């Protein structure tokens, strides 16, 4: 179950020096051209990942240039009306951003306490045997397809719980249902990375704390938690990144009217929701509708890129700590 830990990623391997100059070639006699070709192919395979990033940047930037030739950047970033397909088209992205902010905020309200609680329990309280049972179950949450979460958010959360049971004043869709269910989806991401960083805190620090008379709660909150803080922050930042980029839950349950969302019981369209919905209509390549997709995609990519680099920096810091 590697899904949730993916962004923690491998750092360097300090224990094994990589022999990059040919170690045996002094005795090999003749140069092995076949192996040089293989090495070149391996290097090319690794370079594909860089090509992907460059490809993403170019793919998003070129249509965006076409878009911003017609719509001024400031009007795009600060305009408060999003109606790209209307006769009097308007391209203010603020409504999409507010909906994304709402779903992200709601998701974090669920995912941060639940994820941290689960991580603390697994790292500090659970016996190894209990942990072996609980961790895989938690990881199942990360393996459920987001479209199934979307179905659950719309059919159960919104329709059954909010409207039928709680009688909340809400329509067919709401950012509340989408955000809360998205939070559950993010719990394993936050739990897994936070647990890793708490487990990395040396045992001696806990023993020192216990020797001074602290109980487990005091040790956890005042010794382990501060020591693992950079990893925990990285986990939360990565959670934000996943929430901002999540598409299917919001496309199904949050609705598709782009408007300023003032109240979580309202429907709203997020940036990802717009891209998913607009792509359904067949847009001609080079038309303003087509370019709009990529302009919103570029904004989304830049936001998540920024968030990811913050997260990677925090992970680096906690890895260096001990």
């Amino acid at each position, binding site marked *: *179950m*590697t*899904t949730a830990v*993916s*962004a923690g*990623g*491998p750092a360097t391997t300090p224990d094994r020096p*990589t022999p*990059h100059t040919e*170690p*045996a070639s002094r005795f090999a006699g003749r140069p*092995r051209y076949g192996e040089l070709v293989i*090495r070149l192919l391996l*290097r090319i*395979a*690794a370079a594909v*990942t*860089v090509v992907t990033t460059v*490809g993403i940047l170019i*793919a*998003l930037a*070129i249509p965006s240039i076409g878009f911003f030739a017609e719509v001024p950047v400031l009007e795009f970033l600060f305009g408060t009306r999003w109606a790209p397909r209307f006769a009097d088209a308007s391209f203010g992205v603020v409504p999409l951003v507010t909906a994304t902010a709402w779903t992200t905020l709601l998701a974090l309200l669920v995912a941060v306490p*639940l*994820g941290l609680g*689960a991580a*603390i*329990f697994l790292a500090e*309280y659970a016996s190894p045997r209990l942990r072996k049972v609980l961790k*895989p179950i*938690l990881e199942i*949450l990360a*393996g*459920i*397809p987001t479209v*199934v979460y*979307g*179905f*659950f958010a719309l*059919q*159960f959360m919104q329709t059954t719980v909010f409207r039928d049971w709680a009688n909340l004043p809400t329509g067919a869709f709401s950012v509340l249902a989408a955000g809360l269910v998205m939070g*559950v989806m993010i719990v394993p991401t936050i739990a897994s990375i936070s647990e890793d960083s708490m487990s990395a805190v040396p045992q001696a620090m*806990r023993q020192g704390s*216990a020797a001074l*008379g602290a109980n*487990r709660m*005091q*040790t956890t909150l005042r010794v382990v938690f501060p020591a693992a803080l950079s990893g925990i922050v990285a986990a939360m930042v990565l959670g934000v990144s*996943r929430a901002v*980029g999540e*598409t*299917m839950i919001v*496309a*199904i349950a949050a609705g598709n009217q782009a408007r300023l969302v003032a109240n979580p019981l309202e429907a709203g369209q997020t940036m990802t929701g717009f891209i*998913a919905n607009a*792509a359904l209509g067949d847009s001609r390549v080079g038309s303003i509708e087509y370019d709009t*997709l990529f302009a919103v*995609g570029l904004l*989304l*990519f830049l936001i*998540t890129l920024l968030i990811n680099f913050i997260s990677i920096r925090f992970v680096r810091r906690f890895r260096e700590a001990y």
Partner: protein
Amino acid sequence: MRTLGGTIDGAIRPERPLASGTNGERRPAPLTFLVLLWLSLVVAFGVLVTLIVTIIIDGQGQFTGRLLSEYPASSPDRAGARPAILGSAWVIATTAIMTIPLGIAAAVHLEEFADKRNWFNRMIELNVQNLAAVPSIVYGLLALAFLSLLGVRDKNIVIGGALALSLLILPVIIIATREALRAVPTEIREGSLALGATQWQTTWRQTLPSAVPGIATGSILALSRALGEAAPLLVLGALVFVSFDPSGILSGYTTLPIQIFNWTGRPQEGFHQLAAATSVLLLGVLVLMNGLAIYIRNRFQKRW
């Protein structure tokens, strides 16, 4: 930390503790804290159980052979998910063929050959970490732009979807393969090199075979992520009415998650039941794939 929970057993145990070490665990605050920790797990698992139970209840009326054998239709009583099942199989198989060799090759380069001090290799490392967290829908936009560049008019083709999903799971496979390679002890490599094997011979005959279980586990998990993914395919126009079996990599297709999305959005209750039943089917396949991955890991993983 786990050893600290027990009380001090033994002969020299005082009547009343001098310090409040472990006994402090029984005070209201630590107890409340522990209850809250339990509660966070209970809520998470409760949602998981509720989700599974509700989709099984919603879909129970539609668990028939028709779901597997019929094509989508305008009436929920006649509709099935046959093209979506076949479409998912085509797309995932194509994705696997495209991305697994590439991911393993990239990981072998980074782990076995690359000079870690080289700026280019360090950039690749950072880049892989970042790519793993790029929103999936962005990969859909990338594939859309790429197909437009090639002048492909109908972008709803198996190879297009597979391209988007391949790039999406490539970092996941690279990261998993690197972890598997790193778990192979250095002594194996040194022994091989000492016997006169070249570095590539060592990698191909010693390191890679030892890492196969880990690589297989990581690849299956990555493919199961691709199987459940819908957003990039949505951007490529996979939400279409497909009433034929996909027949090749240039064929039109729809997939299980897209079919679920489609049926969820219909107003009729019958389609919602179909969406639930298809969700159960999709979850079943994912559980099988995850089970296979865990089986491979436990059965074949070497412990050094």
